């Protein structure tokens, strides 16, 4: 079953309701507001996974409280200020997915990144990076919550 979680849907609606230039401004806000890494990761950047699908350097890590689809998921991202587009993508995923259950995140359709009206303001080429982040988040969550492919 695939469904877009409410928080992420709300963000998608915000983007699609805006005109092109304002969409870019909203992406900039997500970029500005991307939370800093907590100390346990800031001091150990090697624990984070790189996302090579992005043009700019971005690293992410997930945490899972418990196992199975009902376990709670936490997402953490790190990207430099010179990579604001990538930071913006990370900010959207952080706000839209953080604190949801593993199952809810695994059910997010893979093409959700294409449904926010971002392709026309950042180009479809650059959007691939956001899809890459989502794919890596899902893979980490599946591993950490010990969910086999048949249950996912």
């Amino acid at each position, binding site marked *: 079953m695939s469904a877009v979680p409410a928080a992420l849907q709300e963000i998608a609606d915000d983007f699609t309701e805006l005109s092109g230039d304002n969409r*870019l*401004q909203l*992406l*900039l806000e997500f*970029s500005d507001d991307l939370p800093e890494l907590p100390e346990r990761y800031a001091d150990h950047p090697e624990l984070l996974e*790189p996302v*090579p*699908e*992005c*043009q*700019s*350097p971005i690293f992410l890590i997930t945490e899972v409280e418990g196992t199975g689809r009902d376990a709670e998921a936490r997402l953490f991202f790190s990207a430099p*200020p*010179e*990579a*604001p*587009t*990538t930071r*913006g993508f990370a900010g959207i995923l952080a706000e839209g997915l953080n604190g949801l259950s593993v199952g809810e995140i695994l059910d997010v359709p893979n093409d959700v990144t294409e449904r926010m009206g971002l392709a026309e*303001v*950042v*180009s479809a*080429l*650059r959007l*691939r*990076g956001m899809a*890459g982040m989502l794919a890596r988040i899902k893979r980490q969550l599946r591993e950490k919550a010990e969910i086999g492919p048949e249950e996912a």
Partner: protein
Amino acid sequence: MTIPADPAPKLQDYAHPEKLVTTDWLADNLGADGLVVVESDEDVLLYDVGHIAGAVKVDWHLDLNDPVTRDYVGGEEFAELMSAKGISRDDTIVVYGDKSNWWAAYALWVFELFGHEDVRLLDGGRAKWQAEGREMTREKPQRERTDYPVVERQDAPIRAYKDDVLGFLGGQLVDVRSPQEYTGERTHMPDYPQEGTLRGGHIPTAKSVPWARAANDDETFKSRKELEAIYVDELSFDSSEPVIAYCRIGERSSHTWFVLTYLLGFDNVRNYDGSWTEWGNTVRVPVAQGEEPGEAPVGLTAGEGR
């Protein structure tokens, strides 16, 4: 030329010192009549994070590429872009950007396809301006719309197509990608996503000079002497003979094209923008792998027709 060239001593050694400006010069001339500053970056949001006051943004992908055909925009679209940005045909344009001016050089090259006469680069680009603690702003300039003329794009002098390259093997061909892309180990720069290029390697006979060898750590261009040591002494390139430069999509090779054309004064340099994403996907073109330039197949060398 609308605005006098930057007289900075460092620039005067170059073949065309009028094509570069220093950060000092730009700071002194900001707001001058007939001067438009353009920022062009890899990251489409970087301008919005903060830019040089009065600068307008031109994005290589959204503004300069045709959205359907793999080509640049045509004369009508270019005129519309320039008009919307408030740029006139006789304005002096100074382009700057991230990554040692890759994308700025690429934008400058596209502007020159349309024969915009006075386009210059800011030596050191965005990084140098920032490192010097100069002012950046998020405020977007309100430039009055202009009526930029529709000019037909002239590709032939500075742009090479695949067939031109096929007839140029054995000529002064330079591959400016990373060593790993040249040998065929990777199809994109280290740390970048591997894209859908079906074959790795390089165009036979192309010599390898990664573009960044022309840049200093502070992202300015190396001195003329240092550049000559690379392209003239090391490669034995003759400035009166034609050169074709390529990379993956033509952006890094725009940087090398700029160096050879304007800093070293080569007479005839073309940028092959199809580059490896075209060549490495093309059926039955010759490919060389490994560190050696390799041989051109018989019948496919420069000057043998085609």
